[in-house]
């Protein structure tokens, strides 16, 4: 097992290097030249300076001189700048945000926290609803209620997130007025007591969470139902029934264990997938999360933030793949990887 994990991690490193190189090259297609911009601003402020000279100076400072490959290695932190220092990803430097005027790492803390909170809560909510519902549908397969849920789930996963969000905003925030339309907190809530602030935050996050949960209901319910049906048609279930076990034990102990394997894959993959998926929700509800930061960075041409977040998304996806592989082994002893 240990050997396998090491092998997978090595492999993920290779994939990360390939992907990061690819994305760095795409990023380099953008018409930005930080050194030129700074040099131009300097020369404009002080006419006595020589543009060429200053340009060269800033190129060296920012490490944008040399070939693209050199720049990539510098960005990674394995190739020295002209003054011989290393300052890249490995040293924890992801560049500066032009929009906020501070290092990318510093400005990502708060949004990261928000995104993780939203995603964890919506995952818990979605699992709490879909697993019982999926099991119920699988057990009562073909009944009227099952068909109704099936049609409902098709509708659920056919609709894009933003349409569901718009309809929910219209219904719950505008017509009924239960929730705020968007935002993270009420203006001026900074002076409130901690408890009130928490309550205010929950009040603002309620509708986004409902929408996110609702969006994931369709696909997850179908998945749980399908794997449960598969499990229920196994021979061991027939044996269990034949030896007179109660139906509850058959369903929840025998079938559910078998159905769990694909579901675990789905849950982990999906949990990591929603880091990308919550991008939409964060933008619609103006929540200060990773997705919104990414979106505004693209809009404001804040390119180093874009690059850093793109890498973050890729790391998340790669970690997800690794965890899925390992979780398979933990959940299902039969496929425990022994290579």
């Amino acid at each position, binding site marked *: 097992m240990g050997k396998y994990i090491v092998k997978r991690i090595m492999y993920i490193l290779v*994939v990360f290097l*390939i*992907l990061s190189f690819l*994305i760095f090259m*795409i*990023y380099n*297609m*953008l*018409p930005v030249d930080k050194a030129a911009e700074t040099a131009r601003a300097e020369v404009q402020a002080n006419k006595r300076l020589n543009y060429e000279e200053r340009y060269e100076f800033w190129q060296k400072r920012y490490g944008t001189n040399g070939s693209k490959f050199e720049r990539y290695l510098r960005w990674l932190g394995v190739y020295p700048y002209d003054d011989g220092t290393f300052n890249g990803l490995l040293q924890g430097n992801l560049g500066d945000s032009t929009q906020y005027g501070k290092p990318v790492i510093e400005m990502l803390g708060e949004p990261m926290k928000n995104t993780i909170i939203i995603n964890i809560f919506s995952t818990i909510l979605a699992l709490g609803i879909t697993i019982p519902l999926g099991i119920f549908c699988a057990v009562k*397969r*073909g009944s009227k209620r099952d068909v109704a849920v099936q*049609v409902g789930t*098709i*509708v659920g*996963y*056919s*609709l*894009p*997130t*933003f*349409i569901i969000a*718009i*309809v929910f*905003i*219209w219904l719950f*925030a*505008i017509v009924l007025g239960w929730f705020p*339309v*968007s935002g993270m907190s009420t203006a001026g809530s900074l002076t409130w007591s901690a408890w009130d602030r928490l309550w205010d935050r929950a009040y603002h996050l309620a509708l986004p969470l409902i929408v996110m949960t609702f969006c994931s209901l369709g696909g997850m319910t179908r998945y749980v139902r399908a794997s449960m049906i598969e499990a229920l048609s196994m021979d061991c279930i027939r044996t269990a029934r034949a030896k007179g076990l109660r139906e509850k034990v058959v369903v929840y102990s025998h079938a559910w264990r078998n159905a769990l394997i694909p579901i675990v894959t789905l849950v982990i993959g999906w949990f990591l*997938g929603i*880091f*990308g*998926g919550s*991008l*939409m929700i964060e*933008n*619609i509800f103006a929540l200060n999360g990773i997705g919104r930061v*990414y*979106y505004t960075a*693209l*809009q404001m041409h804040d390119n180093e933030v*874009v690059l850093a*977040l*793109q890498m973050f*998304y*890729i790391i*998340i*996806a*790669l970690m997800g*793949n690794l965890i899925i592989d390992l979780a398979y082994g933990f959940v299902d002893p039969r496929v425990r990887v022994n290579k």
Partner: protein
Amino acid sequence: MAKNQNTNQSASGNWFVRLMKTLGRWAKRMFFGGSKELTMDEKLAVEKLESPSKLAVKAFFRRKLATGALVVLVCMFLFVFIGPYFIPMDLNYTDPLQANIAPNYSMLKVPDELAANVRSIHGFSNFTVGVSGDNNFYLWGYTENALTKVDYGKIPDEVQPGKVEAAAAGSDHIIVITTDGKVVAWGNNSCGQYGVVKEGDPHRQIPDLLLNGTIDASKVDQLICGYQTTALVLDGELYMWGNTKACLNLNEMADNYNKNVQKVALSNYYAIVLFEDGTVSGGSALSFAMMSAVSSKNGNISNLKPYLEGKTVVDIAATNNCYALLLSDGDLVVFGAAEYGETELPAIPSGEKIVQVEGGTRHFICRTDANKAYAWGHNDAGQSNLNGEEAANIFAGPKQSYLIGEDNQLTKKIGMKGYIFGTDNRGRDTFTRIVHGGKMTMTVGAVAVIVSSLIAIIVGCLSGYFGGWVDMLLMRVTEIFSAIPFLPFAMLLSYVLQTKPISENMRIFMIMIILGLLSWTGLARMIRGQVLAEREKEFVIAAQSMGVKENRIAFKHILPNVISVILVSMTLDFATCLLTESSLSYLGFGVTQPQPTWGNMLDGANNSIVIQNYWWQWLFPAIFLAIATISINIIGDTLRDVLDPKSSQEK
């Protein structure tokens, strides 16, 4: 050289024909079984047996939901692919006066009582007012403001039947003069359209005489409204009031050019006045010197001022941007910023002389002394489809043309009837944009699916059939691609494309390719698994022993056996691609305005004002997108059920 080209063409033609034949054969094999012709005896022998694919088709159509979804989807395809040929769209068209109109179809619904006896018809944007010969007031069209919820259709009590002398409608206000000489006004008055004007606002207040006193109603020569402005000609004297920013020469005209006035015409920016002596003025702001124009008799005129010298003008009219002057000899002169063909004057038959001209927002109508009507200018709603129709009098609505017969009866009304799905924030018809946007959305989705399926088929077949290092390599590539987070990466690529100097069409094409390139991994894995299973079967060994080439076995013998998997996956992927395209476009990183898609039609709907007040702007595109993806998903699910022999035992 020519011959060479020819052979090239025929070679590529052959290639295409071969591809189509192969696809056709697969489809045939899939739905109707093998291609071998059976003799009568064999037919009888196998009559009871049906091929699995035939059974699948039957099972599909036995399911009512799936059949319904298929019908809906086919209808939708016809709607979006044939619709654009019948409903043309001007991509760059905008009209702020038509913005945010709710679904309605009442803009040409002239009340019957008015149609029997018309005295005047006047309108500026979305609603039109009319006065009948027996002094009754009528109002039709879209009379609401969706944002402020003000209904201009609520007629004040002062306006009583049989007591209305003249009426005119602006973009958001209505002015009525009763037979008692009272001026009644309602609607929006935030820009001095009527009532008292606040100190310091750039608005000109309605004259005191009209605000508080009464006038001799029988002496009203003309009453018209422009955009937030009104002009009244009373016994040769001009009164004008309203927003001076909406009519830039309002103060000048009302102060200095207000005597001996015969007629006034209001465009979106200026007023021009026709005096009783047959001269025309637009004040200092609209001088005719050095202004070019088009004359119906003399063609292009480089300088309007000397041209008009010594000539008598008998009628004037204005559209939003253009002005028409009718000279006493029947010569019609049009000038201004023509955007929609306002200066392309119609050919009047010789012997006829123009005697009257009227202007809508972007079109003109004229009448000749032979009582024939001609129209030209913008024709998006058919308002300019007049070429010699009989008319004793003519009126121009904003986007409508009304012809009046000898006995004051309305004989013909053409033009904008309304918008069944409303308009968006730039005044564009939502229905037209849904038709064209659907075409774009479907095309992007289809091309993306085809690209992704082609890649998946090639990778899956090669990887599954050859195994070994090919499999190893291709699967690693697949894993790398599947590790790319879809939405953020697509946004990044689209962002990079936006900074490149490429044409919009090229960008849309690149987006299709990007969507395809990022979504093939799942299907490739599935095909690989299927091919791995099929590879071990006897017919492959048979083909190998007959010496069939490996590529041929992979693509011609094994691939048709996994086509059902591909078909199901393509169907479901199509729905996914529609969703991703619309999500990208919604975020502004897909197809961008003014080119519509169902996704970017919704991008205005991300604030509560639009969601609450302009519900039609997001509801209709959302419904169309939802119906399309839901039907595709239902069809895909059913296909999977009926094509999978394992699940056919269900029930």
